[in-house]
């Protein structure tokens, strides 16, 4: 979607036909060159490399000596689909998406609409607090939350004990750990989406609300009949980017639980990382990464189709 609308905007923004042809020179190529080259080498070339590597048995010995690399056909893919850990990781990823995406959209939309209710200094100051997690390094976040979740001296279990409740294994119980990891992901991701929703809210003309107020529509009614319908594109944008991000969910489980306990929080991305960089199975991990890529592209394409058939 980003690509499609961007191209449309690009075409529209084109300057009218020039009076005379620009000096045909190399300047534009020199200006575009370095950035374009970097994007090709680190954006496009890797796909090709991944596709080729996924058909080989490349591992650490292959890195040292090319003679150790052998073509294995689709063996990596066959091994992948037979690997129970892969299916567990896929299931975990689906769970994370199912918890994370709806929560983020509802929370960030509600917060943005709330923050947009007033232009006062106080409301502006509040925004900063909501943005903080979004700009904070994940490694710092994991230390902070790891300490809060700690089962011996963590604050959360202390608060539970005040209420006479037994301690909870926030990161050690397989089911609770999923929720704890997802919660940190939600906490961190809402900030950016609030920014996007706020930017979109500011483009809604105030007259609409005034007209609705004259017609006697209450606050809640105005939110559901004016704000949310007009935010349709922003909601779609946030849904699709959040979905893509959560299908690639990696940082939180990597730093908080390293995928444990017993693979309960291993996402597909973490699985690929572990196979690739901890076990040095580059060929096998490349095959897994291409499978993830196909999943992401299919889900995104399905969403685009859904949107195209539902409106316009």
């Amino acid at each position, binding site marked *: 979607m*980003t*690509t499609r609308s*961007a191209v449309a905007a690009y075409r529209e*923004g084109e*300057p009218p036909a*020039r009076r005379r042809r*620009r000096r045909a020179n190399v300047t*534009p190529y020199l*200006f*575009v*060159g370095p*950035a*374009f080259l*970097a*994007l090709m080498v*680190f*954006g*496009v*070339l*890797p*796909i090709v*490399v*991944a596709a080729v*590597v996924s058909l080989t048995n490349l591992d650490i010995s292959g*890195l040292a000596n090319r003679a150790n690399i052998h073509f294995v056909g689709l063996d990596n893919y066959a091994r992948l689909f037979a690997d129970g850990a892969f299916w567990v990781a896929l299931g975990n990823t689906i769970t994370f998406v199912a918890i994370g995406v709806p929560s983020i959209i509802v929370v960030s939309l509600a*917060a943005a609409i709330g923050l947009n*209710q007033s232009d006062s200094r*106080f*409301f502006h100051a*509040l*925004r*900063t*607090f*909501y943005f903080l997690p979004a*700009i*904070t*390094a*994940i*490694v*710092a976040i994991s*230390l*902070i939350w*790891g*300490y809060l979740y*700690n089962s*011996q*001296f963590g*604050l959360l279990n*202390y608060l539970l004990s005040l209420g006479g409740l037994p301690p909870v294994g926030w990161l050690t119980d397989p089911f609770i750990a999923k929720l704890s990891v997802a919660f940190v992901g939600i906490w961190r991701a809402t900030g950016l989406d609030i*920014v*996007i929703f706020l*930017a*979109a809210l500011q483009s809604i003309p105030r007259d609409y609300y005034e007209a609705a107020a004259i017609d006697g529509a209450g606050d809640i009614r105005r939110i559901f009949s004016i704000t949310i319908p007009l935010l349709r*594109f*922003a909601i779609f944008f946030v849904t699709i980017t959040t979905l893509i991000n959560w299908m690639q969910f*990696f940082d939180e489980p990597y730093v908080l639980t390293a995928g444990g306990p017993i693979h309960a929080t291993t996402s597909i991305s973490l699985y*690929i990382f572990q196979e690739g*960089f901890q076990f040095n199975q580059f060929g096998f991990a490349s095959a897994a990464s291409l499978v993830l*890529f196909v999943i*992401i592209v299919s889900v995104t394409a399905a969403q685009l189709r859904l949107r195209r058939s539902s409106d316009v």
Partner: protein
Amino acid sequence: MSSRRPSLGLAVVGVLLTAGALATAFPFVWMITTSLKPEQESVAYPPTLLPTTISLDGYIALFRDLDFGTYLMNTIVVVLIGFVGMLLVAMAGYAFAKFRFRGRDRMFLLVLATMMIPIQVTMIPTYLILNSLKLTNTLLGIALPTLVSAFNLFLFRQFMSTIPDDLLEAARLDGASEWRILRTIVLPLSRPILAVQGVLTFIAGWNSFLWPLIVANDQNKYTLSVGVALLNKQLTIDPPLQMAAASVMVIPLVLVFVVVQRHIVAGFTMSGLK
């Protein structure tokens, strides 16, 4: 809606938002207060909100016993390389916005297409590419994979297409070189977008974790994020030390962000992301 008089509804919204804001920010408060506690107090039961005795041991240990001075320098170098990348992106954005040249539309489409490729697919091949370029375990290798962002290139192009063509033509008639036009006209006029992108580049470089983790093998090439992650993997838990490390990573960014926050929201509005 400042025109309306304050209503009960607005007060309720204000209270709810304040509660949410405090809950969101609380982990940071906990981080700072813990970083100032002596070790015994940080694991004491019941926990104390404010330190009863202030101790800077955590911060001292970071820079004296651990190598956080080196990590900090490496991080700064990675951020600076990121700024060079931002200038390359600005240059490319200008050319895509203001020049007509063969293959332009096709190249731009290719640039936009790279936005859809997830990092997990590029992670391993990019490592292999860096390895074959002999750039693993270098700071340049850490910065290169994220040097150029297609999304930022798109934002620059959008912004720079609003620069009047007549201005550029006039400078050309006066005999200014293309390079000089870029430096004296285009970049100064692009100050708002440069400010936003500068902050985002700083944040991205400062926080970057995956590439330093993959590319840096030796301690002396670690960035702050890798150093902080190592503390998390240690067997003995020393909360004040860990929270001091987190504070060293978080506080500089928060200060930068608070100063420029307004411009960031404006930048997103400006980019037409609505």
